[in-house]
């Protein structure tokens, strides 16, 4: 009997956008057992979809390995990769992504016809799956004649055609109302069974109870909410680097720092400087986003780092004067 254990080792994904290196996933380790429903949990921009793309064999990671059962997905190429996409994984998309010109039945048949399955066999299998997702009455309808929940059920049927060992679903309930959400979640829970692992990427923390395992991709943690610490940096020393997990909001007590972005060609784009009394780096800790710029001391500099809650308190007690928000948002 086939098994579907998932092992993710040191997964790092880095790409260039507008000349900057973006690293949404940095050294991710995770494991999941056969038949589990796994949540990839995190806010927008934390790399959930990027990670799913790697799991689905649609994106090659910069570093690390992904193994599903006996298959090392990250080492596949050519026909082996095509075969993996066809038979090794089923994909459920956030926007359903059914082919609008095809009927429900034909949409489910498509992956089988692409794989060379004859029409009669593909039709029989598609009918069987559509009955399973309770859409036997809607086989001749086009996607635009179906509700969002029905379209997502068609997408689930399509993902199951080759009975793959892993199903990946990207925000599968994002476009659905709460009644439809319930049906889709029940279906996803049901198809996670021995021989098949289901990985669901979502930002919705409410799904936690449904999952057998949660892989939390939220950058940083809020464990330092109330903390306050003094930091001293020497001239040229880096306080934090772009892409780092956020920790504190910094207030300059003395000295000066420069804020810059590191481009992939090695050059630096200067964003500005901060002087005594100003603060910076608040968006990362407050919103759970990685640092979008680096900070370096221009001279001997003394700072105070505040956890999110401590920073709110400090800001509320502060006189009305201060640096403009736009200036302070440069982290």
């Amino acid at each position, binding site marked *: 009997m086939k098994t579907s254990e998932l092992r993710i080792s040191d997964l790092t994904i880095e790409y260039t956008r507008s000349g900057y290196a973006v690293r949404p996933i940095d050294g991710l380790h995770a494991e999941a057992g056969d038949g589990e429903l796994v949540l990839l949990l995190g806010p927008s921009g934390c790399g959930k979809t990027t990670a799913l793309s790697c799991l689905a064999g649609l994106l090659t990671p910069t570093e690390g390995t992904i193994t599903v059962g006996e298959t090392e997905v990250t080492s596949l190429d050519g026909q082996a990769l095509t075969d993996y996409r066809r038979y090794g994984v089923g994909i459920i998309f956030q926007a359903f992504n059914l082919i609008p*010109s095809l009927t429900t039945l034909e949409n489910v048949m*498509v992956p089988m*016809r692409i794989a060379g399955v004859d029409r009669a066999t593909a039709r029989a299998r598609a009918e069987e799956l559509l009955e399973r997702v309770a859409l036997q009455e809607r086989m001749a309808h086009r996607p635009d004649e179906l509700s969002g929940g029905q379209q997502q059920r068609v997408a689930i049927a399509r993902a199951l055609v080759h009975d793959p060992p892993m199903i990946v679903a990207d925000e599968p309930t994002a476009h659905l109302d709460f009644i439809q959400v319930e049906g889709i979640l029940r279906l996803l829970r049901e198809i996670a069974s021995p021989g098949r692992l289901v990985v669901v990427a979502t930002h919705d923390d409410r799904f936690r109870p449904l999952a057998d395992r949660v892989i939390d991709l939220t950058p940083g943690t809020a464990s330092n909410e109330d903390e306050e610490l003094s930091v001293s940096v020497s001239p040229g020393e880096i306080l934090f680097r772009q892409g780092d997990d956020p920790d504190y909001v910094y207030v300059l007590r003395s000295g000066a720092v420069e804020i810059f972005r590191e481009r992939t060609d090695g050059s630096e784009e200067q964003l500005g400087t901060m002087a005594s009394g100003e603060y910076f780096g608040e968006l990362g800790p407050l919103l759970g986003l990685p640092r979008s710029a680096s900070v370096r001391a221009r001279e001997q500099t003394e700072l105070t780092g505040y956890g999110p809650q401590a920073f709110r308190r400090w800001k509320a007690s502060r006189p009305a004067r201060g640096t403009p928000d736009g200036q302070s948002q440069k982290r």
Partner: protein
Amino acid sequence: MLNLVLRDLQYRKRQFAIAIIGAGLVFALALLLTGVRGGFDTEATATVEAAGADGWIVKEGVSGPFTSISVLPTRTAGSVLADGGVTDAAPFLASPNRLRPPGATENIGVNVIGVEPGALGAPVPDEGEALTAPGQVVVDKRADASIGEQVTIGGREYEVVGLLSNRTYFGGIPVAYMTLSDAQELIFDGAPLANAIIFTGNLTSPLPGTTVLSDEAVESDMKVGLAGAIGTIDLLRVMMWIVAAVIIGAVVYLSALERTTDFAVLKAVGSGSWSLAIGLSIQAILVSLLAAVLGVIIATALTPGFPAPTSIDVWAYVTLFAIAALVGALASLAALRRVLKVDPARAFG
């Protein structure tokens, strides 16, 4: 994959209908131009072959009887007949002129041909009677005259006794046959001269100061003056193929743009890039072939009323469909590039 192509055609039928109508009109025009070009060939052949001659004797150095006014005395025909190998011979006189149809106020171009009634070169009309006496003409139907009506040619009046179909040259200018004596009166003030002596059989002893031309040489000479028009038509046809390709290409490209996510999804579920690209090419070729069918229908409907003589042979239709397939394939190139570049990860949005 073919099902996907057909379903998409069905789904975007309005979009593709615009492409089919647009390209179909262009194909119809191209086909009509092909017909006009073909008409230049067939009208010359029909007029020359109607003379029924095996050879054309013209003054030495003259390229053809229809394009030159260098003349021979009419009596030369007697000398030609005296040749043992010649079975028949007659003078032949051709010259462009102006004809005023009955009741018309404007003249039209006409090609006057003078022949001896009942002799070699005399026309056999499709309707009415053959020439028998001076004052009569047998004209092509394009001269817009009926049997029994009087037409004016070069200021003189003639009675139409017979009508011919498809007897034109120099780009659809109708022929008016009249007796040799009438033609000589009209062109040479009655001097007994002719452009050529036509004969049947074999001329064993060429006459001094003359040249013998074959039908092919005479036809070829008639088309020299149309070389510019033929070149223009060929250029316009190529431009029309390009316009058709642009119309189809634009619609197929826009369709491919709309389907970018579809292509990404299909790649994500294991479809090969080339398989999708071939599907897109087939779609463009199908659209182009449907446009060609529409083009044939439009051209067929327009041909009878087309001012210039048109001759569209089977080969022209075969060529049209072959070019339409090529146009479709070329039109899909830009969209193909797009499909090949689509990243399957894009399916995640």
